């Protein structure tokens, strides 16, 4: 009397999986609040990782963009702080000066131009309005080396540097900060305790890495040293531009020799300076990205284990609560694998949905954080960016957690005796 079924009527493995998926969704949606609480661990795990990674990726992307803009023909030289235990000690013990920059210009023919610069945060004031900004003490090649343009006036000239003139070139943000008149060339502003005349306005550049490049004022290096003292004169950074970007390594070697001679380093003694080319900076960023990826992966693993235990806990409760259902299914012909897959698919579906929710919330929180950071810390904070691999990774991990931690409850369900399960009150 058993029904004879044709081939079309019998549908195979995927049909059964689809059926079990439908059953799983039905069970999940039947108790939405509990399902939500069950996967809360996974949601929070994925959410935090996505939020952190997307903000970090945004920063990295902006950082790369900045260095790309800088060009492959420039390099950055600073004291080798890494020689000392702390950056502060290095800053105190190491010297790099205007004279070093001049020595490089004279001694390295590969170098087209050199600009020493020092940075100081200071207060600024104009007709009773007070604020603060970043002061750059530098020389005239800084403009061309960094591909900067002016909207009005002129940049610092050789005479400004030579005679320590109290002149300055301001970034666009300063116009607002000090409420300067539209025709502000020739106006005098206070920088710290000095009075400077505005001679130029830099073109709007935007910003990156949380630092607006328009919230700056440029003054002659010599004037800055006069104002900030000997300590500032000994902590100068240098940017250099080479004639031929393809022969960067030659230039680095030559500059290295020059600086070792000027600093009177003996043979075998460690360099007390470090030269960064765009390539090297990229390598460092890659290293940092690698480390942070490792850290993020570790966080993912920990949170997902915690989340997975939450899932296992509730799935075990669910199996106990639904013992009668399991008995009914077994009575009408469900095999052990059917019950096993039913609960396994339920926990995988549950955790994957948690992953999707966490992904969406994480993306939202990252964007919200960026908006808040832009309002409070830096207007130019880079937008959050969720790379595709993060989407795949978090969903994959979430699903895997559901599978791994769903096995035990599912096996427990499938091993139930049909009679005991039916009798269960």
């Amino acid at each position, binding site marked *: *009397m058993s029904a004879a079924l044709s081939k079309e009527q019998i549908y195979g493995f995927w*049909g059964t999986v689809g059926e079990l998926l439908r059953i799983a969704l039905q069970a999940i949606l039947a108790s939405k609040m509990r399902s939500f609480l069950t996967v809360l661990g996974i949601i929070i795990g994925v959410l935090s990782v996505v939020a952190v990674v997307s903000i970090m990726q945004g920063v990295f992307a902006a950082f790369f963009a900045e260095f790309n803009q800088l060009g492959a023909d420039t390099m950055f030289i600073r004291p080798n702080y890494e020689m000392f235990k702390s950056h502060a000690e290095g800053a105190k013990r190491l010297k790099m000066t205007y004279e070093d920059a001049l020595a490089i210009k004279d001694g390295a023919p590969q170098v087209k131009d050199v600009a020493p610069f020092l940075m100081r945060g200071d207060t600024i004031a104009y007709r009773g309005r007070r604020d603060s900004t970043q002061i750059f003490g530098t020389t005239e090649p800084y403009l061309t080396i960094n591909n900067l343009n002016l909207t009005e006036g002129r940049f610092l000239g050789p005479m400004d540097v030579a005679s320590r003139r109290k002149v300055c070139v301001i970034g666009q943000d300063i116009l607002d900060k000090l409420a300067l008149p539209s025709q502000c060339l020739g106006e005098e502003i206070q920088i710290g305790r000095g009075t400077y005349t505005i001679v130029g306005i830099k073109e709007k550049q935007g910003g990156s890495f949380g630092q607006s490049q328009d919230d700056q004022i440029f003054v002659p290096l010599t004037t800055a040293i006069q104002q900030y003292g000997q300590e500032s004169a000994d902590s100068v950074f240098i940017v250099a531009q080479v004639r031929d970007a393809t022969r960067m390594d030659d230039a680095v070697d030559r500059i290295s020799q020059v600086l070792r001679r000027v600093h009177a380093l003996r043979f075998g003694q460690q360099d007390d300076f470090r030269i960064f080319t765009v390539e090297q900076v990229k390598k460092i960023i890659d290293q940092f990205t690698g480390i942070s990826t490792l850290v993020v992966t570790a966080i993912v693993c920990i949170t997902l284990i915690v989340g997975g235990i939450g899932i296992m806990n509730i799935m075990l409760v669910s199996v106990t609560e639904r013992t009668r259902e399991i008995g009914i299914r077994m009575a009408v*012909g469900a095999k052990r694998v059917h019950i096993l897959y039913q609960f396994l698919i339920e926990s995988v579906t549950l955790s994957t949905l948690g992953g999707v929710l966490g992904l969406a919330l994480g993306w939202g929180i990252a964007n919200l954080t960026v908006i808040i950071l832009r309002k409070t810390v830096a207007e130019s904070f880079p937008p959050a960016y969720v790379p595709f691999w993060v989407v795949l990774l978090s969903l994959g991990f979430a699903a895997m957690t559901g599978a791994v931690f769903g096995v035990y409850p599912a096996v427990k369900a499938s091993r139930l005796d049909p009679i005991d399960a039916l009798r269960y009150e």
Partner: protein
Amino acid sequence: MADDGLLIDVKDLVKDYPIGDSVYHALRGVSLQVRRGEFLAIMGPSGSGKSTLLHLLGCLDTPTSGEYSLAGTPVHKLSADELAELRNREIGFIFQMFFLLPRSTALENVELPLIYAKVAPAERHKKALEALQFLKLETHATHRPNQLSGGQRQQIAIARALVNKPALILADEPTGNLDSVTSEKIMSQLAQLNAMGNTLILVTHEPDIAAYAPRQVRIRDGLIVSDETVAARRGGDA
């Protein structure tokens, strides 16, 4: 013993349950033959072993010793998964507590055995609807169990038992949770099923209910004490 009409052939069925250090003998050697199309009531007080016999006949359990062949299949030799397949194909259950899935609709409940029989959705809907139509419940197809009366729930369970056209329908105290009017309706529907050729085994301790079956087997202390065919009281449309 090769008999084309023989559906159930049970020989010396023994079922022991360990209770602590001792052993409880639920069935002490039961032999029973049921032909296709029979309607049989198994009666006995609680603790008599009738539930154990029902579980064994329903392929939910395997005997400690003895042989059971259902439609020529030696059930006592099967694995758990083979038993599941046999239950799915050959047996329809009707329980005292209905045992419907509370979150599923009437139609989905009736479809349940077909899911495990791997019947495609369209075919499944059609068959389940036919079973509901047979019980005149097609208008309640989308209702959930808690929206239905006890009698209607049991009818859904009957539809579920029928849907895969099993060789054997097992009813365990099917009217135990119903009032007398509804009980009569359910019993006459079961009798009607038998009249259409379905083999039916009813387990009950109520003589009124057992009276619907032409053959009555009494069991006590794990042994069959009587097996008699009587003139059945065919329930009318009362």
